[in-house]
């Protein structure tokens, strides 16, 4: 099977001026033909966790359907914001950061899902580590569903890597269902070669008291989309995201992260740190959406982009939507160079400028890498960062 | 001193947001000019009592009554209590950007008296009060509590006490977080308030620093939401020496 695709993805939850070119992004894939990649989670699963492979993409999404009366509820009197784009992703089992076109691609290509289910009350004693090492020229689409039942806890780590010079396609969809009191931690470290088109599309739903934490490192690839739409559907649910990226050469990075806060006293904390070099381009979209009924909720989103070359393009689109009085939302962004004072301080201790810069740049990425709960994968990631800088 | 009560609290029980019960069966009787001290360990409910007396809507009276100047004020809103002559000095005064300290006091004064404020006279008395509190005059034109240090915030509270001149001042942990000099300055302000008028005081504190220069008529010990003991001024010294152990 072989064909061409053009996906319209990362649609901003509310459209704005067209001249900013942030309302959406496009991925073009030509001659798509999938290999027979099976993800390699060779290690034994933690007890209380089961895995079902070969589930069709649609079938795997049905777990969200069974909770749809709790995930997608809108309070009375809800009014859409100006330029609302939610309509186009309505058919998704759970809304994802990249949106409905990824679902369509997965279905069209008959991609099957691996569905991991964590039994009620089980606190997994170790992470599920999935590692994919790509060959040059390989094309793969992967789909995972993580279903954490009541009061369970699970950590999943994805490592996507290839040789530095390799090219190919790596597309991953991860859908997360956290039932009441469940906690899901999803970690991904991406170290693909300079010719890789990569996308990472997350959709998640939290019921009462549930939590989703994301740790994401986008360090390689030439055309990368990385996005998440997390529904904080019920009271006291929480979402945190820590993301670090490195974009160099002519690479293009495109993000769309959304926290949809509907329950009372929900919490969304998003932190994005990155480095842009050479002629790299990055578009970052981050949205806190306080829907009516989300009283007592807080949301905080911070972006820190370090620009190291005069030829980079950095687009930032930090959105806060709010239809609830009793909430606290904040967004901060700092975009620019390393602070001269800090540089001077390090140089005054005898470190030369070039090295001082390198230390500070890698420190920024490593601070997120250190959140990886698997020592081996963490070391590989840090080694990759130091090697590239 | 007169025989009629200024503040009468009868069998008062309070819970937060209709959920957690905090205070139970509190009774107090404060007459004009008297100084009462409410002491107790952390978490006993001291600040809750202060907020309830002033009418903070977060604290629900689930039983009992509060009378001020003979009027039942149990269900009265905070502004009306202030107009009736009550004042609460906050432990953590709120920052209000965009309104200067002096214009805020002028507004409060106007709201309470209903009389037009004579600008020159007002400025003069504000300046005098600030001098007593060793406050730099520039604070008058700064936004209310915005960027004030802990000490300056407490001074700004006492400044309002002096300018608004209430019949009863409730001071909630006014000495907490202050150094010795600041406590002395604040105490001077409180003495000034007592001097000016037959002003009554209810001093809420868990330490005794601020009480050294005040004449105390009654001391109440609050433990776990109830008044467990009432004595005279000497009780302060005893607690100072031995702590709260014997009341717990």
């Amino acid at each position, binding site marked *: 099977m072989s064909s061409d695709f053009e996906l319209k993805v990362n649609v901003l939850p509310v459209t704005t001026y067209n001249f900013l070119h*942030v309302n959406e992004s496009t991925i073009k894939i030509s001659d798509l033909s999938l290999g027979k990649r099976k993800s390699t989670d060779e290690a034994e699963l933690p007890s209380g966790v089961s895995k079902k492979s070969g589930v069709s993409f649609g079938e795997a999404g049905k777990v969200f359907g069974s909770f749809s009366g709790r995930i997608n509820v809108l309070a009375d009197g809800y009014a859409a914001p100006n330029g609302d784009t939610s309509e186009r992703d309505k058919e998704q089992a759970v809304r994802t950061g990249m949106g409905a076109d990824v679902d369509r691609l997965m279905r069209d290509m008959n991609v099957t899902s691996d569905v991991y289910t964590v039994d009620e009350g089980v606190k997994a004693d170790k992470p599920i580590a999935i590692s994919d090492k790509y060959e040059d020229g390989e094309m793969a689409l992967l789909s995972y569903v993580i279903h954490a039942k009541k009061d369970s806890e699970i950590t999943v780590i994805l490592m996507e890597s290839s040789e530095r010079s390799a090219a190919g396609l790596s597309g991953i969809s991860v859908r997360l269902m956290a039932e009441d009191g469940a906690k899901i931690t999803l970690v991904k470290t991406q170290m693909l070669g300079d010719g890789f088109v990569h996308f990472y599309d997350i959709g998640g739903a939290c019921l009462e008291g549930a939590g989703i934490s994301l740790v994401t490192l986008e360090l390689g690839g030439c055309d990368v989309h990385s996005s998440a739409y997390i529904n904080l559907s019920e009271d006291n649910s929480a979402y945190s995201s820590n993301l670090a990226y490195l974009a160099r050469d002519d690479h293009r990075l495109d993000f769309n992260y959304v926290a949809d806060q509907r329950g009372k006293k929900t919490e969304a904390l998003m932190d994005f740190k990155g480095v842009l070099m050479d002629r790299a381009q990055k578009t970052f979209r981050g949205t806190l959406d306080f829907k009516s009924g989300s009283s007592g909720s807080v949301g905080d989103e911070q972006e820190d982009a370090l*620009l190291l070359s*005069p030829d980079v393009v950095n687009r930032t689109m930090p*959105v806060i939507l709010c239809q609830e*009085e009793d909430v606290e939302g904040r967004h901060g*962004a700092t975009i620019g*160079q390393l602070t001269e004072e800090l540089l001077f301080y390090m140089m005054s201790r005898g470190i030369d400028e070039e090295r001082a810069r390198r230390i500070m740049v890698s420190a920024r990425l490593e601070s997120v890498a250190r959140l990886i709960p698997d020592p081996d994968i963490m070391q590989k990631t840090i080694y990759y960062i130091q090697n590239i800088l | 001193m007169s025989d009629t009560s200024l503040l009468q609290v009868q069998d008062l029980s309070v819970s937060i947001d209709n959920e957690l019960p905090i205070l139970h069966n509190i009774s107090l009787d404060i007459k004009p000019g008297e100084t009462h001290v409410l002491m107790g360990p952390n978490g006993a409910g001291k600040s809750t009592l202060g907020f309830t007396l002033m009418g903070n*809507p977060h604290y629900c009276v689930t039983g009992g009554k509060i009378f001020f100047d003979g009027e039942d004020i149990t269900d009265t809103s905070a502004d009306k209590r202030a107009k009736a002559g009550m004042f609460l000095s906050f432990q953590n005064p709120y920052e209000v950007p*965009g309104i200067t300290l002096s214009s805020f006091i002028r507004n409060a004064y106007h709201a309470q008296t209903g009389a037009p404020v004579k600008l020159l006279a007002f400025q003069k008395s504000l300046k005098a009060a600030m001098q007593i509190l060793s406050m730099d005059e520039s604070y008058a034109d700064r936004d209310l509590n915005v960027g004030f240090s802990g000490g300056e915030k407490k001074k700004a509270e006492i400044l309002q006490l002096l300018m608004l001149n209430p019949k009863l001042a409730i001071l909630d942990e006014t000495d907490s977080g202050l150094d010795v000099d600041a406590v002395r300055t604040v105490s001077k302000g409180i003495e000034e308030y007592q001097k000016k008028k037959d002003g009554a005081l209810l001093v809420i504190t868990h330490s005794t620093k601020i009480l050294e220069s005040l004449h105390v008529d009654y001391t109440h010990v609050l433990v776990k939401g109830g008044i467990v003991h009432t004595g005279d001024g000497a009780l302060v010294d005893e607690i100072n020496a031995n702590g709260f152990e014997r009341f717990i």
Partner: protein
Amino acid sequence: MSDNKMAVADINHSLYDFKDIENEQDFYRMEEGLSRETVLKVSEEKNDPDWMREFRLQCLDLYNRIKMPNWGPSIEGLDMDKISSYVRHKSDMKGKWEDVPEDIKNTFEKLGIPQAERESLAGVGAQYDSELVYHNVRDEVAAQGVIYTDLESALRGEYADMIKSHFMKLVPPTDHKFAALHGAVWSGGSFVYVPQNVKVDIPLQSYFRLNAAGAGQFEHTLIIVDEGADLHFIEGCSAPKYNVANLHAGCVELYVSKNARLRYSTIENWSKNMYNLNTKRALVEDGGIMEWVSGSFGSHTSYLYPMTILKGEGSKMEFTGITFAGKGQNLDTGAKVVHQGERTSSVINTKSISKDGGIGTYRSSVIIQSTAKKAKASVSCDSLMLDSISRADTIPGMDIRTNDADVGHEAKIGRISDEAIFYLMSRGISEEDAKAMIVSGFANPVSKELPLEYAVEMNNLIRLEMSGNG
């Protein structure tokens, strides 16, 4: 003095919402709708030079081809077939208030314009529906060479070439659909020229009043502040409320030359049936300073994002804005800035308040081009929600194309805390006053940028909105 701002002045709810008893025969009103014929008729009415007539027709063609915006508030309620694009009183523009027709004069008297002119303005222009009815500038200001006149006479007078080379060059009719519409049917508005190194100490003011129902106002304001000169221009807008939609699609083009400074202040209180689709843009040369102060209180629907192009080295822009969206209002406001020159700097500071189901959206774009080395941009936008049926959305965008720039962005959204209200009430202030006081305090960074009378007017508007009678 904050003192005066806090004082609760007498509020007359009908201050802006009075309809004037018009003798219809005194007014010329163009038929509703938009066609080649209507555009030619406006052109004829205005005795346009040929180039302008051609320009209008080109704009109409663009208008018909450009699509409606695919973002922002809905403008479905606006039916161009029901809007008359030209309404004017049959008498000419006057230079003395006594000569202005009685009915129109009464309107401006009620709005306090003649009095303000006597007391604190260097010059006044007053537009009623589609035409200026009054224009005057103080003798001493005129003696400095300051030109303040209606655009139509300027188009035919000494400054004709200057107008031709600047008119809709900064806001081209291709910019968006309503810029094209403006180009086709514009009428009224002012032309200001401040010669080199002339500093006008007291503000000039234009007041726009749209009195006719179902009409559009399309005034064009063109201001050129020459090298080293300094001007403060104030714009006020109001209209009575009708049950049919009115449209305001004005255009403001501001040229700030080398080392010049222009402050442009607006208090907009259009009635709540108004579609306010206004375009404002400034071009700033080396060392020039552009300052915007903008208060948006009125209108049913607004699209308003004054844009500044910092072309010259070291040029600066400051935008201070407040938007109060009450019942039935969808106000989409903000600012745009493009940094081109080296060491340019911009500061955007906005406050937005939403109440009674109103929708307040802050929308902006900050663009730093690769030529803008050592540019600095900072954005701070705060929103205050007064209940849970309203909306407050923040949609800012940034596009940065050099590493040698320093960009900061901060957005906050929240409510008036119960503690703050209780604190004020404990000092004897009523709940309603406490809320109004906190909202006024929230708005203070904007009101302190305004001349005193306007700050007082703005605080009155806030009180009016807070009491639910806005």
